[in-house]
C-alpha cells in the first residue's frame, strides 16, 4: 500500500470528507470527492456536502492517507471482543436519583 497521494486521473485525487454538524460534536465521514488540492477539496466539500446546512466545519483528507483494516484482519481484530461482555458497563446498578450519568 502506498501513502503517496497520486494524481491518478484528470479529476484530481480522491479526498475523504468529514463534516461536523455542530460545534463540539465529532466530525463524521460524509463521503468523498475528487479535487486537485486541499483548498479545492474544501470548497467542493462545502458545495457537495453542506448545502443543506449539514455542517459548521469540514475536514478533507487524501483518501490515500487513510489506513484501514481489511476483511482478513477481522478475525484477530474484532472477534476476540465478542465474548467479553464484562467490558460493557452493565454489571453494576446505578442508584436511583443519580443525575448527570
Amino acid at each position, binding site marked *: 500500500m502506498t501513502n503517496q497521494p497520486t494524481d491518478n486521473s484528470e479529476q484530481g485525487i480522491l479526498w475523504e470528507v468529514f463534516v461536523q454538524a455542530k460545534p463540539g460534536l465529532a466530525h463524521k465521514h460524509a463521503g468523498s470527492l475528487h479535487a486537485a488540492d486541499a483548498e479545492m477539496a474544501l470548497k467542493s466539500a462545502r458545495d457537495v456536502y453542506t*448545502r443543506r446546512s449539514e455542517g459548521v466545519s469540514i475536514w478533507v483528507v487524501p483518501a490515500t492517507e487513510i489506513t484501514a483494516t481489511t476483511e482478513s484482519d477481522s478475525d484477530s481484530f474484532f472477534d476476540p471482543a465478542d465474548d467479553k461482555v464484562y467490558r460493557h458497563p452493565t454489571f453494576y446498578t446505578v442508584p436511583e436519583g443519580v443525575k448527570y450519568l
Partner: protein
Amino acid sequence: MTEEKALYNYLIRLGDNALILGQRLGEWCGHAHQLESDIALTNVALDQIGQARLLLSEAARLQAEGKDEDQLAFHRDEHDFRNNLLVEMENGDFGQTITRQFLFDVYQFHLLKALCQSQNDFLKAFAEKSVKEVTYHRNLSRDWVIRLGDGTEKSHQKMQNAVNLLWQYTGELFEMDETDEVLINSGIVPDLNDLRPLWEKEVKMVLDEATLTIPDTRGYMATGGRKKGEHTEYMGYILAEMQYLPRSMPEAKW
C-alpha cells in the same frame, strides 16, 4: 424621475442581472467537467435565482400593478430586461464561464458591500444577506481563474481567450444614468464611480497572479443592456428557453 420610479428601475436592473446569470449558470446542470464543479456552478445559479426572486418581488410590490416576481421574470420581453450584457454572454467552455463569473462576482461583491449602507431598508437587508453568498462565489471563481490561468499552456490560452472576449463587456458595469443619480442623491445606492477603482484593483491583481493580460480594446466598450434594454444576439435564446413554459402554459404549477 421620482425616487419610487428610480428604485423600481434599479431593482429591475439588479434582479435581471441575478436572473439571467442564474439562468446561464443553470445551463451547466449535468454538463460540467466533473460532478463537483457541476454542483458548485448550480449552487451559484440557485443563489442568483434566490436573489432575483427577492429583487423582482420587491420591484413588483413597488410597481403596485398586481404583478408578482414570476410575471416580471417570465412575461417581460427582451427590451424590458435591464441586465448587463456581461451576464448574458455565452457559457462557452468552463474557463469562459468562470471568467465571466469572476468579472461579475467582484463587481457584485463591491456593489452589495456598498448597498449594506443603503438608506432603503429592503436594499440594505437584501445586501446584508446576499453579500455572504457572493463572497463565496468570488472566492470560488477567483481560485479557478488563478488555477487555470496559471495552469497548463492549454488552460492558460483558453482563459486568455475568455478575458479577451469578455473584457469589452466590463465597461457597462459602471455606466450610470438618471436612475442612479436620483438614488445616489438620496443615499440609497452607491456611485459606481467609487466602486470602479476597487473592482479594477482586485481584478488586475488576480489576473496578474493568473498570468493573464487585459486586452487593449482601444477604448471600446459594449453598452446597451443596463440603460436601454438593447441586448446581444444571445438574449432572445435565453428568454425563449426560460419563458417558454410559463408562457405556453400560464396555469402550470409545480
